[in-house]
């Protein structure tokens, strides 16, 4: 890791001020993507601004129709939250399926959502659950938030403060892990919202990052069951292909994982 200067602001204003007035700054949350990146010298911010001490970024709130999670909330906390399990069990299950125990004790929902790794889990929940991303300056609907691999609507210096999920009638998540890295090679988050509309979000597979599989949504609107998807396939040209899995295999996995997600509605155990 190259030399860097660490800052621990206590307010949003102080953090943004540090960012604005520093050369080559970067925000730091749980650090479980950023620190490995720094260690391999793929990034070299001169200033690290740790946002975890800012009070607005903490806490979980559940209302009649929303789950609102502070961006510095760790995966282990979301996974163990009785309040979240009661209303969106699949979201707690997703958090509990990320990485391993030690990683979940450090990694945060804000870090995952801000980084938008194409294999990250949270982006699928954010998109499927019609979430609203709250920042220090505005609210961004999920449909406008994700803009391709590692790319979001966040502007330089903008801080992700909390994520507001809509509580669905029911939701399910399923993923196929790379046997070595345990990252998803394809994962599907299926939500049936209270007004009846369906959202199917796919992560780990698409060559432009997380995306909505609208053809699956249409079929599930007609018939909300795994059988409805039996003959549906996805075009491999939309898939990533790499040494772990070629595009046609990922396309196959997307269809299988989406059917499994429908079979795992309300489940916290993510296969």
């Amino acid at each position, binding site marked *: *890791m*190259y*030399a*860097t*200067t*660490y800052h*621990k602001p206590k307010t949003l204003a102080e953090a943004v001020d540090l960012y604005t007035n520093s050369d080559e700054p970067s925000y*730091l949350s749980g*650090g*479980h993507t950023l*620190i*490995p990146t*720094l*260690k*391999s010298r793929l990034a070299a911010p001169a200033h*690290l601004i*740790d946002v*975890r001490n800012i009070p607005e970024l903490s806490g979980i709130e559940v209302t009649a129709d929303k789950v609102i999670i502070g961006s510095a909330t760790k995966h*282990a906390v979301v996974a163990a939250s009785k309040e979240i399990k009661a209303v969106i069990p699949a979201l707690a299950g997703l958090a509990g399926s990320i*990485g*391993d*125990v*030690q*990683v979940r*004790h*450090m990694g945060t929902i804000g870090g995952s959502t801000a980084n938008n790794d194409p294999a990250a889990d949270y982006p699928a929940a954010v998109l499927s659950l019609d979430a609203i991303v709250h920042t220090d300056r505005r609210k961004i609907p999920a449909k406008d938030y994700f803009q391709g691999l590692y790319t979001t609507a966040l502007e330089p210096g903008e801080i992700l403060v909390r994520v507001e999920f809509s509580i669905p009638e029911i939701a399910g998540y399923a993923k196929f892990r790379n046997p070595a*890295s*345990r990252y998803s090679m394809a994962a599907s988050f299926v939500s049936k919202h209270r007004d009846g509309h369906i959202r199917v979000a796919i992560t780990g597979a698409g060559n432009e990052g997380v995306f909505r599989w609208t053809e699956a949504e249409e079929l599930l609107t007609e018939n909300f069951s795994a059988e409805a998807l039996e003959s549906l396939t996805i075009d491999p040209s939309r898939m990533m292909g790499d040494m772990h899995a070629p595009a046609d295999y990922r396309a196959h996995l997307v269809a299988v994982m989406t059917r499994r997600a429908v079979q795992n509605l309300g489940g916290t155990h993510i296969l």
Partner: protein
Amino acid sequence: MSRITITVNGTPQTREVEDRTLLVQFIREHLGLTGTHVGCDTTQCGACTIHLDGVAVKSCTVLAVAADGSKVTTIEGLAEGGKLHDVQQAFREHHGLQCGYCTPGMIMASVDMIRRHDGMLDEHTVRHELEGNICRCTGYHNIVKAVLDAAEKHRAAHAVAAE
């Protein structure tokens, strides 16, 4: 450079460190506590697992400066008064190690696991929750036996305490 204080195994330790210093470097190189190992250095193998404010984390992926003011327990801090911790004793009795490189991380992860589940563990759960700790001797079988034995002792101790 930053001046930081981390309470390690009950003793406050104040040092001047570069901001890029990893917590595992602080523990090993600044404090000389070499029981915590560095295996992969990429957050995968778990050899560097310690407890940070009571929970298991991989100390190769935490900045020391970010842990300023925190409490850390390392493998050296488990035994009390010359008596091994129950998990250490179980690893010894079940031969839960081969080369021993992963052992400190395995034990720290296991102590955390038994605490979180209050000892209510079965083999499947132990194997699943040791996902973040890799034994390249592939000696998992006896490690799992050791964790289950220590979990049983934990349950028995708490049942006695409850009476």
